[in-house]
């Protein structure tokens, strides 16, 4: 996982509440066998005027010019500003996959759906929950050329006007994100303990290690 320390980036405002995971990435894309490549289909039904299908070439699809991500001034945005209860609906991990594949690293909203929130952090995406008032203040400020600085170490957002907004994140998740460690990295820090367990188990229960399944003829 990519470590996250600090970014200064463009902000795309998505003024909607209850954006569900089906809107983030519609169900027809779930048949994919990959976790990358979802970026072009992010918010598919809002972004394009025709129905998206897996493996479609999006370059030639009719764009919905009104949709925020299609406005040139928001191209390259890495911070998404959204309404409350962002990421509700099905638990598909494809939603954070699509957001990060598109290039987002931070989502700021008044609230997030639980599973989505956890899935974001598993995939190197930083969800920041702020007060309603703070979020609407940001919505009022945002526009072409508007950039925010997000510093994870100090847990602060800095606006172009120098205003500092603190945000919360639990310690173990912050630690993981700062160091770019996914759950697997963290577990692998106990690799010695795992190996020791395996050695002990091979002695106590040797039958579990008798068959090397991979050696069987294919």
């Amino acid at each position, binding site marked *: 996982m990519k470590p996250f320390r600090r970014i200064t980036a463009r902000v795309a405002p998505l003024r909607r509440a209850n954006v569900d995971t089906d809107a983030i990435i519609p169900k027809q894309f779930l*048949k994919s*066998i*990959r*976790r*990358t490549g979802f970026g072009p289909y992010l918010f598919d039904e809002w972004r394009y005027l025709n129905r998206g299908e*897996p493996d479609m070439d999006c370059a030639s699809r009719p764009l919905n010019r009104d949709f925020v991500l299609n406005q040139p001034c928001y191209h390259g945005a890495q911070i998404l500003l959204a309404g409350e209860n962002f990421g509700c609906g099905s638990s598909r*991990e494809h939603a954070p996959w699509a957001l990060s594949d598109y290039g987002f690293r931070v989502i700021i909203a008044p609230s997030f759906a639980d599973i989505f929130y956890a899935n974001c952090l*598993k995939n190197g995406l930083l969800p920041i929950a702020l007060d309603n008032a703070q979020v609407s203040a940001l919505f009022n400020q945002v526009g072409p050329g508007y950039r925010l600085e997000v510093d994870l170490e100090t847990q602060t957002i800095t606006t172009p006007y120098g205003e500092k907004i603190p945000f919360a994140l639990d*310690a*173990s998740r912050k*630690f993981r994100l700062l*160091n770019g460690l*996914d*759950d*697997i990295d*963290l*577990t*692998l*820090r*106990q*690799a010695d*303990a*795992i190996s020791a*367990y*395996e050695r*002990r*188990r091979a002695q*106590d*229960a*040797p*039958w*579990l*290690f*008798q*068959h*090397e*399944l*991979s*050696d*069987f003829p*294919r």
Partner: protein
Amino acid sequence: MISLPFPIDLNAATSGFPVAAMSPKTLYDKLWDEHLISRAADGSCLLYIDRHLLHEVTSPQAFEGLRLAGRKPWRVAANLAVADHNVPTTERFRGIDDPVSRLQVETLDRNCAEFGIKEFAMSDPQQGIVHVIGPEQGATLPGMTVVCGDSHTSTHGAFGALAFGIGTSEVEHVLATQCLVQRKAGNMLIKVEGDVGRGVTAKDIVLAIIGRIGTAGGTGHTIEFAGSAIRALSMEGRMTVCNMAIEAGARAGLIAVDETTLAYVKGRPFAPQGEQLWEQAVAAWKQLVSDEDAVFDKVVAIDASSIKPQVTWGTSPEMVVAVDAVVPDPADEADVVKREGAKRALQYMDVHPGTPITRIYLDKIFIGSCTNSRIEDLRDAAAIVRGKTLAKNIKQALVVPGSGPVKRQAEQEGLDQVFIEAGFEWREPGCSMCLAMNADRLEAGERCASTSNRNFEGRQGYGGRTHLVSPAMAAAAAIHGHFVDVRSI
């Protein structure tokens, strides 16, 4: 190395016997403690996984994740893969028509080849439903932790193994580390005492249990099924019961090891080979029972003699009644949420309160799935079908064996002919109409007697209506065109 912001106790694992001998433990406690590598201050534990089963639907992103991170499987030999959800059950030599299904299956083949993982590919004689082949091959053994990216992994608990379903990120985690980060669940005991009557099967026992405790009855717990009625079940029957633990809300179901377990396991391809190793394993496996005075957080007692053949009438496995009952009236339901749920279910299922179950007519019959596709299930169904023919209103009746070996065994016993002569279709092994990911499915409005485990809206095809029953009950419905009480045959 950066230090962790929270302490992890590496000595949490109780490796020695003295501790175990002092405090009474449930079977679940024993399995948990034996696989515990460490415990973090927040209660999350690192658990060692002995067996990882994979199939084509939930594994591709996990393999891709490994590849992207440049990681290798921790212990290749612990993995066993099979294609089951998407495979066609007819003319397999023709390959898979649906390009998306085909890609998933081919991707599994490719991933297994790349990482050196043992796979039963679609054309392999041992291929079958992942939860059927694990035990059949002896890849599931007592005392193991068994996981798979599939909720019905609970099936393997029938062997006194701690077995549960996991998500795609966890599949990747197990591949990379041979461990999982988990929190311990509560202990629940369901005791079924006494003898079941003639015609009452493991499926009826587990449906009756779910009818009694509800689909959330086991939430947050691991259920141990015990009592003389459970002991009396064959391994096939025990797998049927544990399979549906997930429908009772529990991620894992368990049944203690006894002579029935040992007799089933002995001699299977991946079971311990050699007299000495076998004896050593058996000695350890005999400890896999809950201690006499172990304490459970929740206990439910059920009288086996009260259980009749069961039929679900709604869109949740808890919406179930005995075959001699009528479709219940939502008006009798005190709980508002349940009442509304029952009304919606009746509407979707197009059945009416007060209708006798035996007056429900079917369009299709499905005998298969990881709940009921093993040899005993097929024998049960064939015994009812023998010498009879399908009722006129039955448009299609499928028998889908759980695996290649089950299919061949049934053919040796002539069961395939019994079914074919009656008008059933005898298919190749796979998940098939259990979830309709392949070409086998219900059309909108069609009504099916199914031996599978989920009667959710659209599960067997968009708009399809599913009644869950035992193999014998499904067979009887096929012959009569409507549900009949198998006890009267």
